[in-house]
């Protein structure tokens, strides 16, 4: 009970941390979806030299994202953005780093989902005069997202679970908030259990939301 009182006492700070976590994750997921779609489109070209260069770029990008620690990626993106002279806040840099990371994974998920869309689907659209971008946005990606929904959901949850790493950029999200409170109060376990419960609620909530959405899609 005493523990609960302590946590309750700091609820505003914790909720603020939770807010940052939700904001950072949501923004990163949305941008990552765009990055993933963009990378997938870059992979769709034929055999011309520019297409081959783009495909190679995506291949290198994806293996880099998969083959290096997220923490290292965050440092690199942060420094690279600074060197490029972009005057971005740590928050924005952090969101970009997470998005670029997750975008690589989403590109791979989309690659798998694309095999579920038969060529005839796009040919029919093309024969009816639909433009290539519209074919992607209205015929191909909706079907890909539908079949790849389970993998996409795990990736979204992954983004939420990786977001504490942004504390290295002094972004005071949920985990960082807890760390601070621990060092202030010398009480640790209750805070960590409390944020674990919060993370669990977000992730489980997201999963439920997706399940509902899936039911709606599968009428």
């Amino acid at each position: 009970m005493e523990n609960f009182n302590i946590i309750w006492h700091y609820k505003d700070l914790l909720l603020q941390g939770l807010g940052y976590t939700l904001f950072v994750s949501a923004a990163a997921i949305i941008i990552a979806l765009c990055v993933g779609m963009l990378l997938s489109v870059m992979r769709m070209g034929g055999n011309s030299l520019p297409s081959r260069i783009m495909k190679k770029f995506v291949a290198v990008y994806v293996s880099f994202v998969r083959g290096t620690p997220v923490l290292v990626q965050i440092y690199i993106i942060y420094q690279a953005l600074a060197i490029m002279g972009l005057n971005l806040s740590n928050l924005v840099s952090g969101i970009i780093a997470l998005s670029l990371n997750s975008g690589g994974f989403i590109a791979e998920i989309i690659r798998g989902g694309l095999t579920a869309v038969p060529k005839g689907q796009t040919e029919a659209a093309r024969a009816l005069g639909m433009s290539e971008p519209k074919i992607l946005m209205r015929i191909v990606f909706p079907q890909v997202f539908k079949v790849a929904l389970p993998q996409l959901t795990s990736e979204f949850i992954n983004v939420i679970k990786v977001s504490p790493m942004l504390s290295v950029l002094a972004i005071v999200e949920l985990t960082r908030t807890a760390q601070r409170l621990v060092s202030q109060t010398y009480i640790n376990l209750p805070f960590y259990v409390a944020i674990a419960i919060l993370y669990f609620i977000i992730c489980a909530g997201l999963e439920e939301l997706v399940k509902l959405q899936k039911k709606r899609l599968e009428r």
Partner: protein
Amino acid sequence: MTESRTPVISVRNMAKNYGELKVLRKIDIDIYKGEVVSVIGPSGSGKSTFLRCLNYLEELTSGEIVIHDQTLKGIDEDKRHKKQNDKAAREIRKNVGMVFQQFNLWPHKTVLENVTECPVQVKKVNKEDAKAKAMELLKKVGMDGKANAYPTQLSGGQQQRVAIARTLAMEPEVILFDEPTSALDPEFVGEVLNVMKDLAEAGMTMIVVTHEMGFAAEVSDRVCFMDGGYVIEDGTPEEVFKNPKSERAKQFFSKILNV
């Protein structure tokens, strides 16, 4: 038809290779307004390839296709044709619809959405008008009762009739059919052929790749027999079926009639 006729589609010297494989060697053909042309021939003779070149689902290797005042040109003659072809194809596809063997309805959209999708997205027709038009077309093909169903809930014959309505919604001048009944269970072939017959009677210009010799004989104005990348016979059903000039066609007919 006494007025001097200009063809709707004019194919000159068309060839199509897939790498080393010469699928279409030299095709010359004119299609006139209101004509129903059946294209028949053995498997692998290039019938689908021929159709797919007409609306630029495939690039032609050489020669040219003129539809209205738009020209598709062989890309082997000049790589720059590619850009011009892309542009011409956009215009051509406004006038030339296509119906596929596998129907290719979009499974994530309802029947009604399948039919309204392109009028709204491509022609910018407003949604209400598109819906009204779509219901009219669905009624025409006998599918208005299933407007809110999803394609997977329909039989093959029903899906193909929806696919025809989807094509009609774009108000094409010519419709290409690539074996529209070959993927159907026998009991559903008739309903699709009947819809096509109605279209033919209404004056639609149609090119139909088919194995339905009955349909070819009864409904078409012209029958083209393809083999080895050439159109070997081109005449009225009477001429082609009763008096084929070539040995190849004779053999083909004797084979399919014996089955």
